[in-house]
């Protein structure tokens, strides 16, 4: 088996001079579940579109399942399954007809087709709804159907672009389970994009954090969070705190401390085990602790760490960039 399912070197895409993806390089091992995490407009979808041959790269090299994405498009296409960010189903056809359309486009013979469609329908639990027009499906059912469709032709690599966008919490959990199962039991290499931190955290073996077309960090979720040094314990305090602060600073397991008015933010490992000790020290120094809050670092904090901005702030500023990008793309077509 090939060691790497994907190899990308300095891949770049510009739209009328605006750089959407800026010289990214990475590789994904066969069987890995790799995540692209970043705010809207970071360039995740453009990356997926290039790797799935829908967009030409402006420059750089990409290889999927051993095939050059720009020279060997048909073989690349045969090796991949794609679930796009926006629904790409024909809503005037039934669920089964959508699957049949796909299987025939991929040249699967009739007997095999019947069997395979039955299998994937069972996998996503849509067998009973197969004769219903897709326009009557719920958002979650549509997503499941698309995942099933992406799998019909036994792809080596599956691209999932924001697979749970706009779905309710329960359905999201459900989809996560499918994705995990596909990857762990089916052995399919999966690349997913998301702007939900907890999704990347829960699903991915490795995550690349993307911002303004570039990778700002790439590692396992655990290691990315380790960079931050551990949990954050915030304590609201009453009373003269100078002595307490001196003593806390002298503790070797405190990695970082910050004070905002009456709140102390302390970084440490295994925060939940340290809280009783901290309260005890505070009491000894005549300080009353009125509120304690423990926060495990999320990838949100990692994003903040690497870019100096939170994702939400970033998304607001991205709106301008997105509009400019859309204008550039519209202009290109006129």
């Amino acid at each position: 088996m090939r060691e790497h399912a994907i190899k990308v070197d300095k891949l770049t895409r510009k739209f009328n001079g605006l750089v959407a993806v800026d010289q990214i390089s990475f590789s994904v091992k066969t069987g890995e579940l790799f995540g692209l995490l970043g705010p809207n407009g970071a360039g995740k979808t453009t990356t997926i579109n290039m790797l799935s041959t829908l967009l030409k790269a402006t420059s750089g090299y990409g290889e999927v399942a051993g095939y050059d994405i720009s020279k060997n498009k048909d073989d690349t296409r045969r090796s991949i399954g794609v679930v796009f960010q926006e629904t790409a189903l024909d809503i005037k056809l039934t669920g089964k007809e959508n699957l049949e359309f796909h299987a025939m486009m991929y040249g699967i013979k009739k007997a095999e087709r019947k069997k395979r469609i039955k299998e994937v329908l069972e996998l996503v639990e849509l067998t009973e709804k197969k004769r219903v027009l897709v326009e009557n499906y719920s958002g979650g059912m549509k997503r499941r159907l698309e995942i099933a469709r992406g799998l019909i032709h036994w792809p080596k690599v599956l691209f999932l672009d924001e697979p749970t966008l706009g779905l309710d919490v329960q359905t999201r959990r459900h989809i996560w389970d499918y994705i995990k199962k596909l990857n762990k039991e089916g052995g399919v290499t999966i690349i997913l994009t998301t702007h939900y931190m907890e999704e990347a955290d829960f699903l991915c073996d490795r995550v690349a954090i993307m911002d303004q077309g570039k990778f700002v960090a790439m590692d396992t979720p655990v290691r990315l969070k380790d960079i931050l040094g551990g949990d954050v314990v915030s304590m609201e305090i009453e009373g003269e705190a100078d002595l307490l602060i001196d003593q806390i600073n002298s503790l070797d397991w405190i990695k970082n401390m910050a004070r905002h008015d009456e709140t102390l933010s302390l970084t440490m490992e295994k925060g939940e085990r340290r809280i009783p000790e901290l309260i005890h020290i505070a009491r000894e120094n005549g300080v009353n602790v009125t509120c304690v809050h423990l926060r495990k670092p999320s990838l949100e904090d990692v994003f903040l760490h690497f870019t100096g901005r939170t994702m939400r702030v970033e998304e607001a500023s991205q709106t301008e960039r997105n509009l400019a990008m859309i204008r550039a793309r519209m202009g290109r077509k006129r």
Partner: protein
Amino acid sequence: MINKTAIYVLWLREVKRFLRAKSRVIGALAMPLFFLAFLGLGFRKMSIPGMSGEVDYIRFLVPGIIGMSILFSSTFGGLSVLWDREFGFLKEIMVAPVTRVSIVLGRILGGATTALIQAILILGISFLFGFKIVSISSLLLALAFMTLIAITFLGLGLIFASKMRDMQGFSIVMNFVIFPLFFLSGALYPLDNFPVWLRYISKIDPLTYGVDGLRAVLIGVSSFSTLYNFVLLAVFSSVMIVLGAYFFEKSESV
């Protein structure tokens, strides 16, 4: 180069969608039938200059209305790529491992089939208005002309679709391309009444030969010979299909 299964399934999709959308079928038939009914009845007693005396206006009109129906449905059929883009389904088609030529052929076959179904329905209904054809065999020749008209304008629709991002330019295409093509073709009146310069413009409208060819085979009265119409229309349709495929292939699908 050609993926037969892919062409078949693309065709099948168009036909299924068409047959399921009852309102679309009725809507597509309504306008040509209104034209046929009101113009046919309204001008029934008129003698129109430039038309040989022994032809009723309704007989003159029916081939024109059939041409009109194919013009509209085929151009829309080509433009329907934009709907697929809007609803995302275009990506599903474009990411499949089939040659782009097969995708274009599948679309054209599907579009031509639905356009022909509508045209045949109109022809059938026109018999109720007293339309008569010269012979049964002329129906086969008429089908050939209808197919060529459909292919020509599906190609035109594909060209426009690849130049537009969304359906916003739709009314422009409608008002500045489709209607002029329709009026220049002589579907409603003999072109002999046009001033000379306008007659020259008519000669670069493919629908002119489509309508005249249909008249030649269905009612036996025409400005040009059947063969002349057929050859010119065949050239137009080949050029359009090649251009349509070329532009479709070059346009990016996302």
